[in-house]
């Protein structure tokens, strides 16, 4: 097999014409990264606030009112008044509230008589995204209320001080946007390659290409190149927005990040190619790239749901996913400023999966031709 650059370049040129003539794909490829970064940058915040709190105050005293004040002035909760515990519960069921505070009639009396004044807090356990943070807030407010209303000294005899490294203000964007880079690249590369190559199979032009003296490898390189460039362009795009608009720091080396991008891109291009050869049909290619490309790189890569929290099996299983490794590289490059050597393990794993995927795609391609 001899590889001729000019022929691969001709393929790439043809593919580029396809992309250019199709303003839809072109704009999608460029608009999508923008939309995703903006969505994440503007709309997503892990720091849960404005939780709707349904309050039923059967005590109606100064103490109970101050308790409600403590909730509303904390910034975590938005209070909504109800007349009875039953109504508060209804609000919770109908999702008019995520949490309910039920103050019993004897609340103030218990407080001043030295007994523990109890109030009930109900959380909507059907909503996975709020329960954990809200229960932490409730703890904080319990201490706060005890100090403020009852004047109790709740400070422990020691000082427990947490130092948040790399992201002292706990800005969720700093966590999410380096991950968005991974997701965008995964989607662009796997989708576009899988779909275009499947299209050539579906309408028979692949057979035409194969009947010419063009080597298969030239076809692959030629088809992949324009999409690789689009993917690379998207990364640059996201990088600029991340830095300029959202102030995400970049503490590592650009070349390390670039190298990671390149290997990752190659891996997913190969996977896209593999899918297209295996399916030879766009509908199927689309579904397969969704299932094997997009879903795992959003859900199992550690993008939002930490891998460490998954059952042991997944801790090993996700090792097969290039997105997991590139996620580590991207985050470390942005926030922690790790050197190439410190990232040796993810790099090795990523390169390994790249090699495996390329070999698999090439093998499948060759076998299909025979």
């Amino acid at each position, binding site marked *: 097999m001899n590889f001729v650059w000019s022929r691969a370049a001709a393929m790439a040129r043809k593919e580029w014409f396809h992309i250019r003539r199709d303003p839809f794909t072109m704009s999608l490829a460029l608009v999508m990264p923008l939309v995703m970064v903006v*969505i994440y940058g503007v*709309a*997503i915040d892990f720091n849960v606030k404005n939780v709707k709190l349904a309050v039923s105050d059967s005590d109606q005293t100064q103490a109970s009112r101050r308790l409600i004040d403590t909730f509303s002035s904390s910034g975590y909760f938005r209070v909504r008044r109800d007349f009875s515990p039953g109504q508060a519960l209804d609000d919770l069921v109908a999702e008019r509230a995520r949490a309910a505070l039920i103050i019993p009639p004897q609340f103030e009396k218990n407080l001043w008589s030295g007994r523990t004044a109890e109030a009930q*807090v109900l959380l909507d356990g059907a909503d996975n995204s709020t329960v954990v943070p809200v229960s932490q807030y409730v703890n904080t407010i319990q201490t706060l209320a005890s100090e403020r*209303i009852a004047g109790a000294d709740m400070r422990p005899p020691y000082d427990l*001080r947490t130092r948040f490294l790399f992201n002292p203000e*706990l800005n969720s964007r700093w966590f999410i946007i380096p991950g968005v880079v991974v997701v965008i690249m995964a989607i662009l590369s796997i989708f576009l390659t899988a779909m275009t190559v499947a299209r050539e199979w579906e309408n028979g032009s692949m057979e035409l290409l194969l009947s010419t003296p063009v080597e298969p490898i030239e076809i692959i390189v030629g088809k992949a190149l324009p999409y690789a460039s689009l993917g690379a362009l998207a990364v640059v795009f996201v990088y600029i927005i991340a830095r300029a608009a959202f102030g995400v720091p970049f503490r590592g080396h650009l070349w390390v990040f670039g190298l990671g991008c390149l290997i990752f891109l190659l891996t997913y291009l190969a996977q896209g190619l593999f899918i297209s050869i295996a399916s030879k049909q766009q509908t*199927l290619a689309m579904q397969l790239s969704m299932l094997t490309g997009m879903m795992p790189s959003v859900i199992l890569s550690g993008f939002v749901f930490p891998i460490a929290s998954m059952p042991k099996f997944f801790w090993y299983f996700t090792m097969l996913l290039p997105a997991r490794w590139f996620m580590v590289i991207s985050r470390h490059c942005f926030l922690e400023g790790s050197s190439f050597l410190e990232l040796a393990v993810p790099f090795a794993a990523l390169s390994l999966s790249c090699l495996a995927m390329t070999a698999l795609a090439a093998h499948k391609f060759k076998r299909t031709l025979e």
Partner: protein
Amino acid sequence: MNKTLLGFIKKELIQALRDPRMKYILFAAPIVEMTLFGVAISNEVKNIRLAAFFGANDYLVRDIYEHAIGGGWFIPARASGETAQDPFELVRSGDADAVLVPPEGGFTRALGRGDAQLQILVNATNVTQAQSVESYMKAIVAQTLADDLGLTPRPPPIKFDVRVLFNPSLDTAIFMVPGVMTMLMVLTTLILANIGIVREKEMGTFEMLISAPVSKSEVIFGKTLPYVLIGMTNLPLLLAIAMLVFHVPLRGSILALIAATVAFVCTTVAMGTLISTYCQNQQQASMASFLFMFPAIMFSGLIFPIENMPAAVQWLSFIDPLAHYLSLLRNIMLKGGGLQASAWHIGVLLILAAVSAAASFRRFRTTLS
């Protein structure tokens, strides 16, 4: 029933179900994904790698550390124990997620002097994880001191009795399963409906279709009804996994669940059809579906709470069918809501379906131009 409609349904079902690979994608893949994602993902933070440095006689820090490891949230980091290392470097190199750093001379002695300070270094790259570490540690330290020194913190004069309704044991699967179900349902219906129509355009069979004296509604319903049917077959599959594998309860009425699912599938199929009127080929269709689905998942409240989003963005979740279906599933499966409690979301879904159907109707042509 209309002959043309029947013909369409038959043809679409044959086409969708003949290809064994397609059958796998339609029926086996949702089962596999549901099981996989149901097991894998949770919002709870676990297995945080903790390191601690303590002197030989600093037994309090050792106990805190052991308590933490024993509690299930933390696992030991590679470097730990009595050898002193730069804790910052330990976090930066990725060997530990959190490090306990006692004061000079040990925490135990400092506590005796009355100015005890215990520092926790946390890798705050992952915000949720960092916050969880802080709150776990607070509880663990207080507990350890109570056990070791009888240093029980004064009972707070005001105490909350916190109860998590509908999922008191905080079972992760019960949290996540409705979300995963929503995601998988939209994946099959929206894309299939969209691509099914665009494929006819791309292959040229669309011209044959419209050269027959068929009405717009026959083509539209003929192309979409089969996908509603296929989408509905996913419900029993996913429900079976949810109930048998994950023991997610179905507390509400099954009728409400079916009604909700029909409304949701109609909406996603109608939206897929609307998207298809803007696309000329399957590549465009898949990109467009994706461009729709990604924000739709984000604004559904599945991963991030809707309340948290800026008000300007929150209305997006109002027109997001996934948000409504997710609420419906949570309500019907976990809270035991009946048809009446679901009426609002089902109503919104039906309106969304009607609007998208009307819009696709307007855009759809049975003539060329």
